[in-house]
């Protein structure tokens, strides 16, 4: 499942480690409290214990906690090196993405400006008329994201991925889109002013062939 520019896979794998552990811990604490409520309730004749520490148990428990924390961290770091999605530099080295396609995105209140190779630009109208991101399916696409005014963030919930657009900084990352997936919740997720809720981004995924045709046509239209 995982591979270059995969963000959804690492998220799902990590979540399927974290959530069951959390569920087990919750059940254990709840059980302990049920026992307290049933067995250790104050009643005539019940004398509370005077014991105030139990060093071996406490140390053993702390070690168990440390092991859980280490496991979570190890798997978290592994998931990061799988996709390593956020690679921001104030001035990133120029260079094409893994598949050659780089799309520059400039966020501003309250829309996106998408720059393709050859001077092709996609913009939207007044909100909520969002810009449309046209991408090829199945190929890693490199993005260079920044902002012209305040801090925004590009969130693609379907890909479990989010990157901040900070003025003066360029966030560089790779994403891979799939045909038939639902990208309709893609939007700005960092509060950026009154019309923040209308700062959406349409995503139009095409087959690599159809994408190449579209890009050539747009480039051709510019050349004329």
């Amino acid at each position, binding site marked *: 499942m995982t591979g270059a520019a995969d963000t959804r896979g690492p998220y799902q794998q990590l979540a399927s480690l974290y959530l069951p552990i959390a569920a087990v811990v919750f059940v254990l*604490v709840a059980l302990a*409290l049920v*026992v307290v409520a049933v067995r250790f309730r104050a009643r005539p004749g019940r004398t509370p214990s005077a014991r105030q520490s139990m060093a071996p148990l406490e140390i053993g428990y*702390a070690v168990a906690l440390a092991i859980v924390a280490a496991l979570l961290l190890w798997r978290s770091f592994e998931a990061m090196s799988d996709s390593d999605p956020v690679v921001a530099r104030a001035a990133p080295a120029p260079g094409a993405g893994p598949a050659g396609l780089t799309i520059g995105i400039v966020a501003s209140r309250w829309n996106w400006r998408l720059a393709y190779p050859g001077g092709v630009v996609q913009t939207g109208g007044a909100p909520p008329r969002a810009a449309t991101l046209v991408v090829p399916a199945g190929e890693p696409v490199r993005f260079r994201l920044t902002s012209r005014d305040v*801090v925004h963030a590009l969130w693609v919930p379907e890909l479990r*991925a989010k990157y901040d657009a900070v003025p003066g900084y360029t966030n*560089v990352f790779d994403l891979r889109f799939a045909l038939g997936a639902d990208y309709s919740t893609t939007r700005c*997720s960092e509060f950026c002013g009154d019309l923040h809720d209308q700062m959406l981004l349409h995503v139009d995924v095409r087959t690599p062939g159809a994408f190449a045709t579209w890009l050539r046509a747009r480039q051709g239209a510019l050349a004329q």
Partner: protein
Amino acid sequence: MIGAFLSTDHKVVAIRAGVVAAIFFAGAGVLALLMRAELARPGLQVVSRAGYTQLFTMHGSTMIFLVVIPVALAFCLYLVPLQVGSQQVSGARWAFAGQWLFALGGIVMWTGWLTREGAGRAGWYAYDPLARTPATPGPGMDLWLCGAIMATLGAILVAGAVLTTIVRRRAPGMTMLRLPVFTWTALASCLLVVFAFPSLVVAFGLLLAERHGARILDPIAYQHLFWFYGHPAVYVMFFPFVGMVAETASVLSDRRFFGYRAFVLALLAFTALSMSAWAHHMFTTGAVPSRLFALTSTALILPAGIEYFDTIATLWRGAVRFNTAMLFVFGFLLQFLVGGMSGIFVASPVLDYHAQDSYIVVAHFHYTLFAGSMFGLFAGLYLYWPKLTGRYLSERLGRVHFALLVVGTNLTFLPMFFLGEQGMARRLADYPDRAGWGALNLASSVGAGFIALGTLLFCVSVALSFLRARSAPADAWGTGMSLEWATSSPPPPHNFDALPPVRSYAPLYDLRHPGGAPTAPPAHPAGPRPQGASA
């Protein structure tokens, strides 16, 4: 009457801070209800977009700067001198000034509503450059920044007074390792206030300068300054409530707090780690070393797990009385667990890339702050109300209050996890009418109504308590552990007429169990007890 406003008695100052915070709590609650009314259905029905922006900014910032932090510190201010056996707080006039700075800061912040552009509306973390004049014009935003700075300076003053009291005003025999558990949590919180809060004063001061012509701020540098304050602030809003829960568990199960030394050690580790975890709020910027901050944040499992263990082990083999205060302890332990574990979830960068700024995070911090800290506060209020006033709160109303809050809290905040997972961002005045989103939001809005009802009922219960006679004895529950239960309820202005000897962290327990009380420092295994203790 004037004395109620001008007294420097730490107890009066603390109660005054509590009353002011309660007023702002009511205000922030009304703002929350307006937000939930707007979000009950897709579309804009109740407020405008600009109005909604002010609602969530003022709700969040009021709750943090003017309610939870002041209440946490007010509890420290009230209880710490009593717990360490002091007649007065050290630096009583600092505390006095700090309390009035809370109140004045709040008033300044809220006068923003009177300006044409409205009150603060850049979110509670007021990111640069959004909070600069071009994006957020108007004096309302300046008033908001000034008010937050004043309240934060107030917090620093109060924390300084509490810290100095712990260091310099302890009763004879009270070594640091005989401090009551709550006092340790107060110490940890106040350390955080003193070391982390100046960073907010600097950040907001720079923003103010930026708004009036200076060109000094960088967006990422601002975020570091802000979160260097903002993350420790979360623990200032948590530790004292952990302390209240610990005291309640110990007193109402008639057990010395279990694992005292481990708890103290864990608390100090907690304090250190919480000051080194701030940039996990910035994973999505890509401009921070994510692995380092994932490490410090995930390591919080250790101290948090130890504090849970010790609290539950205190109840274990106790004689647990299930009154309202104990119910809130149980509510805290289960609900904060959801908030705490979802915090570990978002401490992992890959998981945070999805959760950050989504409703997952809104659910997470409301489970920590409301389902956690507020429930801890209510445990503490039910436990200490007789100490504060000499009167008990109604147990019957208390149970209904608890039930309403449990239903309301979970109905309000649980759906938010699912909304966030499905892609709903926070701070949206309106949301798309996707399958399930309307129903989940409606459930959340209904839940907010339950919380409001529960809170109103608590107000009634408080009012009714003043109709009752002052009947609480010094040791209001008969199983007090530390010195605050050795003086009358409420305590006299000078706190104590006489002090019992302090030979452990539970001197009143020692008095009740003569002969069995350890004279050595605590946390050594207790010797055999006359009661035939088995552990």
